[in-house]
């Protein structure tokens, strides 16, 4: 299967630009370091007008404006906490906004904790939508085992279907509503993904796709783009049907 790797390559080709508007050296250096492992170039715009209220602007590869937010707010976006989906449902934070802001930005060297936090945001969307199918891919059955209780609660309390892909054999009994495609073969074991098909709504589609290139170092992106999600879902469906 080349579908998943093609998706990562395509995102990689589009480097974003992060403009940090601040007169503080320390703040600029902080973001430069933080983004040194991302597919984004950091440029500092020094200005006295932003003394106590610095902000960042994100631009796409064509330098088109994509978003702006205050530096404190941006820090919060960059350090997501891990919460289970049923806790996020009531959280008083604009998760979708935060999430949308950095979508389609390739990240590198996410660790397991950051991957889990991002996965939770996708699962939370599925939880709230209460319809549709969530696809999740695990590199091995041990990784899957650690997430099973989350997925069992999701199918028990919500009207969701879950399809899980795992490269090696997985023989444990699963709750109704969870399909396991084990021994999926191909490249599936190279990827960690969580994709939600939106339950019939384009606005609800979202997903995370990453590849572990070094131990505990993930390389990939998340997206809200419905066309991109459709492509990934169709390549996953063709795998699970075969």
């Amino acid at each position, binding site marked *: 299967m080349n579908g998943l790797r093609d998706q990562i390559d395509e995102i990689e080709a589009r480097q974003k630009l992060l403009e940090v508007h601040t007169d503080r050296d320390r703040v600029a250096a902080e973001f430069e370091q933080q983004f040194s492992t991302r597919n984004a170039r950091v440029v500092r715009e020094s200005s006295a*007008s*932003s003394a106590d209220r610095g*902000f960042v602007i994100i631009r796409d590869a064509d330098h088109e404006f994509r978003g*702006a*937010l*205050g530096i404190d*707010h941006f820090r919060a976006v960059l350090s997501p906490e891990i919460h289970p989906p049923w806790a996020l449902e009531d959280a008083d934070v604009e998760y979708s906004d*935060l999430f949308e802001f950095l979508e389609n930005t390739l990240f590198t060297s996410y660790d397991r904790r950051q991957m889990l936090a991002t996965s939770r945001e996708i699962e939370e969307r599925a939880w709230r939508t209460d319809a549709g199918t969530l696809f999740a891919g695990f590199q091995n059955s041990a990784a899957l085992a650690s997430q099973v209780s989350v997925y069992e609660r999701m199918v028990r309390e919500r009207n969701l279907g879950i399809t899980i892909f795992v490269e090696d054999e997985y023989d444990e009994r699963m709750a109704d509503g969870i399909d396991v495609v084990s021994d999926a073969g191909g490249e599936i074991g190279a990827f960690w993904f969580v994709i939600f098909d939106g339950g019939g709504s384009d606005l609800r589609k979202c997903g995370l796709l990453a590849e572990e290139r070094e131990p505990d170092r993930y390389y990939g992106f998340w997206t809200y783009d419905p066309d991109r999600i459709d492509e990934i879902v169709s390549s996953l469906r063709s795998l699970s049907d075969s």
Partner: protein
Amino acid sequence: MDEACLRDVLEAVEAMESDASPDVLLNVLSDRYARYVLCHLSDESTATLDALTDTATGLAATESGAIATPGDREEIRLRLYHLVLPKLDAAGYLEFDSETRTVERDEIPAVLRELLQKET
């Protein structure tokens, strides 16, 4: 703007030299986008409409605590172009060339500069 700041404005207006009209000054100070533009021009004497829009969008996002989208930025750009920059031009604080979409700083009253400094 809090009370202390408003008091400063009123005191400043009283103490002001006669060449800056209080009405114009207060009108400018009460428009946050005008304040953002003047903040930007305190750093640079010339600026493009795009650069001013970026600054105003970033400062507005910081103040509101929300994320500014491309749609928000476009609204601010139109606002600057049609309302804010012509107003500041009429007040004599800057010159706005709507053809080239560039702005050149003119005479910004000292009292105004001081108040904007306080705000940041």
